[in-house]
C-alpha cells in the first residue's frame, strides 16, 4: 500500500488512533459499526419512535414527557394517573384540557397492548388472531392478541442492547478480574482460578442458566442479564490470564515494580491497558452471544415475564402460530442482524488491533 511509507516517517500515533485508522479501511467493519450505532439510536429513542404516550405534551400549564414511562413507570407524571388517563392520551388530553398540545411518537402503536378503535381519531382497531398481516397501520403486523409487532421490535431493541451491554459488563469485569489475578500471581491462586474457570466451562451453559433462573424466584430482565453475565466470563478470563502471563515478564512491568508500585496498581494501571485490545474482541463476541442466549431463553419460555417486549418472546409466540410468518421473520431478522453486526465488529477490531494479522493482510 502507498500510505505505508508515510506512516513510518510521520510521528507515531497512539495505539488506539492507529487501530482506528486500520478499522476505518475495513468496509464491512464500518457497515457493521454503523448498524450498531443505528440500533443504539433506536434503543435510546424507542418511546419516541413507537408508542401511544406523547413525547412532550403541554397539559394544564405544564410540560410533561409521558413517553419516559416506557423506560420506567415512575418517570410518567402521577398527574395522568390522578386524572384517570388510563394510558390513552389523545382523547383525554383534548377532553380534560382543550388548550393542551402534544408531540406524538412517529408511529402510534403500543408494544404492550392492543390499540383500540378510534383511540387515534379515525383509526381502526389493531387486527388480532390470524388477521394481523403487515399493513399500513401495523408495519410488521400484529400478534394474535392484536399487539403491534413494529412497536414490540422497537422497544425490544432497548432490551436486546441492554442485555448485551449489562451482561457483558458483568462478564467482562468478572472475567478480567479472575484472569488478571490468576495470570499475575500464578501459583496456587492460578490453579484455583483456572479450576474455577474449567468448572464453569464444563457445565452446559443453557442448563446452568435454566437452573439458576429456576432458583431465582420472579425472574425479571435484569436478573436474566445478571445470570447470563455470571455464566459467560470463562472465555474472557482465559484470554486475560494468557495476556497477563505474557505481559508480567516484560520490562515495563519490572520497571513499575522497581519504582515501588503495588500489585493492584501494576495489574490494573500498567498491564490491563496493554491487554485490553485482545480482550475487547471476546467481549464484542460476547455481546452477540448474550443477545443470542436471551433470545433463546425467551424463546423457550424462560425469559422475563410477559409484559417485557423482547424479540425472543415474539418468536416464542410464533411457535404455536406458524402460519403467522411475520411473527418469525421480523424478530428473527432483528436478532440475526444484531448478532451478525456485533460479530463483524468484533472481527474488524481483531483485524485492526492485532499487528500480526495487519501485516498478513498487506
Amino acid at each position, binding site marked *: 500500500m502507498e500510505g505505508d511509507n508515510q506512516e513510518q516517517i510521520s510521528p507515531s500515533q497512539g495505539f488506539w488512533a492507529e487501530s482506528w485508522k486500520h478499522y476505518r479501511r475495513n468496509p*464491512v467493519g464500518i457497515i457493521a459499526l454503523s448498524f450498531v450505532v443505528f440500533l443504539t439510536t433506536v434503543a435510546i429513542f424507542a418511546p419516541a419512535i413507537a408508542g401511544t404516550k406523547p413525547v412532550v405534551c403541554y397539559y394544564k400549564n405544564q410540560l410533561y414527557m409521558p413517553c419516559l414511562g416506557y423506560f420506567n413507570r415512575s418517570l410518567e407524571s402521577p398527574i395522568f394517573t390522578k386524572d384517570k388517563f388510563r394510558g390513552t392520551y389523545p382523547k383525554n388530553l383534548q377532553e380534560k384540557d382543550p388548550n393542551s398540545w402534544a408531540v406524538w411518537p412517529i408511529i402510534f402503536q403500543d408494544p404492550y397492548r392492543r390499540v383500540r378503535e378510534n383511540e387515534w381519531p379515525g383509526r381502526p382497531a389493531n387486527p388480532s388472531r390470524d388477521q394481523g398481516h403487515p399493513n399500513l397501520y401495523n408495519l410488521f403486523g400484529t400478534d394474535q392478541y392484536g399487539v403491534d409487532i413494529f412497536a414490540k421490535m422497537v422497544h425490544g431493541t432497548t432490551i436486546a442492547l441492554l442485555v448485551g451491554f449489562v451482561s457483558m459488563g458483568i462478564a467482562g469485569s468478572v472475567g478480567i478480574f479472575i484472569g488478571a489475578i490468576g495470570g499475575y500471581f500464578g501459583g496456587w491462586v492460578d490453579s484455583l482460578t483456572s*479450576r474455577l474457570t*474449567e*468448572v464453569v*466451562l*464444563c*457445565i*452446559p451453559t*443453557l*442448563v*446452568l442458566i*435454566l*437452573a*439458576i433462573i*429456576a*432458583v431465582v*424466584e420472579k425472574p425479571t430482565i435484569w436478573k436474566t442479564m445478571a445470570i447470563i453475565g455470571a455464566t459467560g466470563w470463562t472465555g474472557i478470563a482465559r484470554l486475560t490470564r494468557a495476556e497477563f502471563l505474557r505481559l508480567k515478564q516484560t520490562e515495563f512491568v519490572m520497571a513499575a515494580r522497581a519504582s515501588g508500585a503495588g500489585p493492584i496498581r501494576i495489574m490494573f494501571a500498567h498491564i490491563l491497558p496493554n491487554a485490553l485490545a485482545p480482550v475487547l474482541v471476546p467481549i464484542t463476541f460476547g455481546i*452477540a452471544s448474550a443477545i*443470542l442466549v436471551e*433470545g*433463546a431463553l425467551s*424463546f*423457550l419460555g424462560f425469559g422475563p415475564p410477559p409484559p417485557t417486549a423482547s424479540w425472543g418472546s415474539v*418468536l416464542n409466540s*410464533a*411457535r404455536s402460530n*406458524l*402460519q403467522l*410468518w411475520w411473527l*418469525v*421473520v421480523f*424478530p*428473527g431478522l432483528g*436478532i*440475526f442482524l444484531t*448478532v*451478525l453486526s456485533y*460479530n*463483524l465488529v468484533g*472481527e474488524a477490531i481483531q483485524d485492526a488491533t492485532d499487528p500480526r494479522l495487519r501485516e*498478513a493482510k498487506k
Partner: protein
Amino acid sequence: MANYLLRRILLGVVTLTVITFIVYGLARSMPGNPLTVQLGESDPSRKLNAEDQQRMLEIYGLDKPWPVGYMQWIGKVVRGDLGRSITRKQPVTELIGERIGPTVIISGTALLLTWLLAIPLGLYASARGGCVDERVTGLVLYALYSFPTFVAALFLQIIFAVWLRDTPWELPLFGMSDLPSDAPLLLRIKDVAWHAVLPVVCQTYVVLAYNSRFIKSNLEEVIRQDYIRTARAKGAGPYRVLIIHAFRNTLIPLVTLLGLSLPALVGGSVIIEQIFTWPGMGRLFFESIRERDYPTIMGLTFMFSLLTLLGQLLADILYGFVDPRVRME
C-alpha cells in the same frame, strides 16, 4: 506419559466433584420438588397432603438437607448407580439408554456432514483466498454462523411444513416417527430419516460455518510458512501444496476441535430437540429441570461433564500423537 495421565485424571475427578456438587445444590434449591411440581400441575385435587408428602420425601431421601443428599448421591455413583428417576419411575441409566439413540441419529449425522463439508470448503476458501467468489462464500458462511438456530428452525418449519404442505417437499413439523412400532423396519427407517432432515440441517449449518472458517484461518497461518514457499519453489502445483503440504499441518487444531465436539455428540441440543420435539437427551434435560427430577438432572450433568473432560483429555492426547513435538508433562 503415565504420570501425566494420572495427574489429569485426578484433576478431572476433582473438577467433576465440584461440578456435580454445584449443580446438585442448584437443583435442590429450585422452588418446589418433583412431587409438588408434577402432581400440582396436572390436577390440583390430586395434590398430596402434607403427611403423604413428607412420607414420600423420606422414601426418596429428600427430607434431609441437600449436602447430605449429595453425599448419598455420589456414594451411589461411585458404586456405578445413577439412581432412579422420581417422575418417570425408571433407572436413570435406562432412561439415558432410551434417549441416546435419537440424539446420536441427529448429532452424529450432523457431525459427519459438517466434517465432510467443512474440509473441502476450507480448502476451497484458502485456495481462492481474496477472489470475489471466496469473499461471497466467506460472508455467507459468516452470516450463517451468526444465524440463531431457533430462528432458522422456525423459518424451516414455516417453509417446509406450512408453505409446502401437500407438496412432495413437505417435511414433518416435529416428532421422530409417525409409524407404529410394528411397521416394517425399512419404512420406519425412512420415516425417521424424513423427520430428521430439518433438525439435522439446523444442527449442521452453524458448526459447518464455524469449522470451515476455522480450517481456513489455520490454513492461512500455515501457508505463510517457509516450507510452503519451498514446496512451491520446487515446482509442486497449487493443489498439491495445499492438500499434501499445508493441510496436513492444520490437522493438529482440527483434532482438538474434534475432541471438544464429543460432548455435543451425546448431549444433543436442548433448543433443537425442544423445537422439533425430538425425544433425545437435550429434551430429557429440559424436561427433568422442569419436573425437578433430581436424579435425572444429576445423571445427565454427570455424564455430560464426564464427556467434556474426557473430550479435552482425548484432544490433548491426540495432539501428542499428531504432533510429535508436543510432550506430555
